[in-house]
């Protein structure tokens, strides 16, 4: 890997957004803006190819950036869908600051993905400050850009944003504390579980695991839908992969306490997430809780991969990518159905199939994929989680997960039935938003019929 090119790939999106602040570019029309962002993503794709095809070059004596095939597959999907969801921001009349924030978030996310493996190795093998600081920079970049993305001039949105900022500040302090504790030279056996607990708690706060989830449903309802969609796809995905990478490695040294923490987090997140989602009338809030429960399933997957010592998190990557694409697309649809910036409730979806059949079909496919119904990609994600769990003989956890899959199916079905029933409700007026949704839909169907595509992306 050529680390110079990777470094350029990481920092390019953040700086590429800056010219958008110039008044002349700001006032240009949507097409110019999309073209401008499109050039960036093509450049990133080319850089990605060159970074891996040429000779190896490192920035320092130690490797700073490293990536496994599963992370590379995820990276490709983030680049493709990252562009498509920025297109959504532009098509939905999102301001230029939102686009800049989205590009900065991508930089932070790339930083996190590229540094997660060296970071984990540095904690366990060779303690290195630079390796510990780089993912922190990525995390903080993501936090700052998320604030830009979530900001919305609405009372509830600002309340939600304050909640988010407070949670993230605390989580950052936990992560920093965790990392510093790893540098302690004395009482290693005593300190390591505490350090791990700090790190896992910090990341759990960021991805919204129960009991650190309070901010998430509020933000997903309060912030603009396109921002939430983008943030889930790019930010959430990279954070979860970061958690998966270091969890699998940390399990080698502190498995007992690790499993206990992770199982509790998973159980609470699955149960509270799914049951709360079932009782929601506002679909956006429902999806917010669904994200929490998905995080719970991912932790179940992390447990399985940790026990099986699978250092390359294929299954987690597949799950998080398929789930987040479906959820992000749903946010776009629900956001586009809103009138006067008020979140729609499920009753307003009545009769959507008759009025806008294509929207209804897309919405149903995303929900079915999220619920893990074949032949959509979400099915394989759930099958992989269950089969990995069975491989570890953690059958009971498999049963609990399967039960909550059913709860997820129930509320997904309620929405689909509402869409299919008769009645008057909201319509999508802005047809421009459909293009990325068609891509997302085709991708979920193709991946559902041929999951090896994900594996092939990892080898590109």
């Amino acid at each position: 890997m050529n680390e110079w090119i990777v470094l350029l790939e990481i920092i390019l999106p953040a700086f590429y957004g800056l010219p958008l602040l110039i008044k002349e570019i700001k006032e240009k029309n949507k097409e110019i803006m999309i073209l401008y962002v499109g050039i960036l993503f093509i450049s990133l794709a080319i850089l990605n190819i060159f970074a891996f095809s040429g000779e190896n070059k490192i920035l320092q004596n130690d490797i700073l950036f490293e990536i496994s095939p599963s992370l590379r597959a995820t990276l490709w999907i983030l680049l493709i869908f990252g562009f498509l969801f920025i297109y959504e921001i532009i098509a939905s009349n999102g301001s230029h600051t939102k686009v800049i924030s989205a590009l900065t978030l991508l930089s932070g996310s790339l930083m996190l993905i590229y540094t997660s493996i060296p970071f984990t190795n540095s904690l366990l093998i060779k303690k290195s400050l630079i390796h510990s600081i780089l993912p922190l920079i990525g995390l903080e970049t993501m936090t700052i850009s998320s604030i830009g993305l979530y900001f919305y001039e609405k009372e509830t949105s600002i309340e939600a944003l304050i909640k988010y900022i407070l949670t993230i500040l605390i989580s950052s302090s936990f992560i920093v504390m965790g990392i510093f504790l790893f540098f302690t030279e004395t009482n290693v056996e005593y300190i390591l579980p505490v350090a791990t607990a700090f790190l896992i708690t910090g990341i759990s706060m960021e991805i919204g695991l129960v009991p650190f989830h309070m901010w998430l449903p509020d933000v997903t309802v309060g912030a603009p839908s396109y921002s939430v969609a983008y943030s889930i796809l790019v930010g959430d995905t990279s954070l979860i992969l970061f958690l998966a990478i270091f969890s699998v490695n940390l399990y080698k040294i502190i498995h007992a306490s690790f499993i206990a923490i992770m199982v509790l987090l998973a159980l609470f997140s699955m149960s509270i997430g799914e049951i709360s989602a079932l009782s929601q009338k506002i679909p956006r809030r429902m999806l917010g809780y669904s994200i929490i429960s998905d995080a719970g399933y991912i932790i179940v997957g992390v447990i399985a991969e940790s026990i099986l010592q699978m250092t390359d998190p294929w299954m987690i990557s597949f799950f998080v990518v398929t789930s987040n694409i479906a959820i992000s697309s749903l946010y776009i649809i629900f956001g586009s159905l809103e009138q006067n910036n008020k979140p729609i409730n499920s009753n307003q979806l009545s009769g959507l199939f008759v009025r806008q059949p294509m929207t209804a079909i897309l919405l149903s496919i995303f929900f079915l994929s999220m619920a893990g119904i074949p032949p959509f990609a979400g099915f394989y994600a759930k099958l992989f989680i269950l089969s990995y769990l069975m491989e570890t003989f953690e059958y009971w956890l498999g049963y609990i997960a399967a039960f909550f899959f059913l709860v997820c199916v129930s509320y997904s079905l309620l929405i689909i039935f509402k869409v299919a029933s008769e009645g008057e409700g909201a319509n999508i007026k802005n047809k421009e938003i459909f293009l990325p949704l068609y891509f997302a839909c085709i991708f979920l169907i193709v991946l559902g019929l041929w999951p090896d595509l994900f594996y092939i992306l990892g080898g590109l």
Partner: protein
Amino acid sequence: MIPLIFLATILPAIVSFSIFFIKEKKRQTIVALISVLVSYFIILTLFVTKGKIKEFLFYYSEKLTLYSIPVIDYIDGISFLMITATAVLYIAIIIYSYSEIKERYISYTILILLLYTSLIGIFVTETLPIFYIYWEFMLIPSTLLILWWGGEKRYRSSIKFFLFTHASSLLMLIAIAILVSHGIVLISQLHSYKNPDILYIMSLFTIALLTKQGIFPLHTWLPDAHSEAPTPISAILSGIIIETGGYTFYRIVLSQNIPQLLYITTFLALLSAFYGGILALKENNVKRIAAYSSISHAGYIILGLSLGGLGSIYALIGGLFHLLSHAVSKGLFFLVSGTVSHLFKTKDIRKMGLLMKNTRFTSFFGLISSLSLAGVPILACFPGEFMIIVGGVQSKYLEISLAFVFVLIISAAYALRFWLKIFWHPTDIMIKSLPEETDCYRVIGMFILAVAIITIGILFTIIIDYLLIPFL
């Protein structure tokens, strides 16, 4: 070489999307019919020319699934039997639907063709995860068909149908996940799995399959879904969809010798046969009579298969044969039920009667289906039922055979009550004017199934000798 079985499976689904671009209803119907016929013709040609065949499609890499999973399709006599039943029933219901379905005909046709693909997929797939994909995908079109074209309680019925069958399918998913985690990815590999947890795995499969089959006490979704669905879909639900449970029971559960599980399924099957029969005898709603009859006949199938698993070859053949005969007989029974409720504008059997006077064709088809379900010789259901009784005696379970004979008497009672009340018997309430014969499309649909019932009833030895015995 093009994978022909796979092509035959997905052809109706691919063709279904072209229906979007066809404007005339008649042409849409013809395209749907042709796609089903071509798909069946491909499978027929393959079976006639090659007999039992397997077709490898591709591998799933081991990176994601831990084991590399080959995707394989196959055809043998039993799967061919099921595909034939599906094709015959589909041809009948597509023609019948031309008159029956008035609204959103394009969506309806697309959904039934997608359903056809998923059904054929279940019968031809050897790979367990792919089998589950078809199994679960079947739920989407069938639920939507009930929801959009169903009766007054369609919302409740369709959600109940989906959740019940999906909940049970999740148990099957766990079982498949356990098998996949042990490297067992093909149905044909199941017999080589000798771990002690096989009873546990097969119990999970059995719960899922008995739920789909509508066996007591896992049947609660069935009466609502079958009675609320539009008539042609009721025929598919009862004729083929629930049969997938029996077919898979034979393929998966009977691949292992687990007598303790088969004792339970035998008991439940007999109980279900009784329960369904008694409720059908008491019921006054025409479609619910057919639905309860399905619960009863589902019991026959599982009884035959379970006795087969316990060592009786006759019962096994009887159970498998009844999959075919029940599909066509119950299909016709539902079409007749739907036709008479359409003619009388009510589903209440007490408000019907004397229909034979005006509707000679419908009454004849009603008689054929009722007599077939009653187990009258030279009609489709008789050979299967007879062989199950013989199978019970053969495997030294005489008491089961006796109980089954009693169930058959109940079955004859409700089937004849159905026919007499609607077509013959003067009603308690005077009918002001008798409806006229139904339209020709409905008659053709019913005629196809009536011919199939008589043909199967007469040529049963050929079916057993050429499609069942060589492939057991």
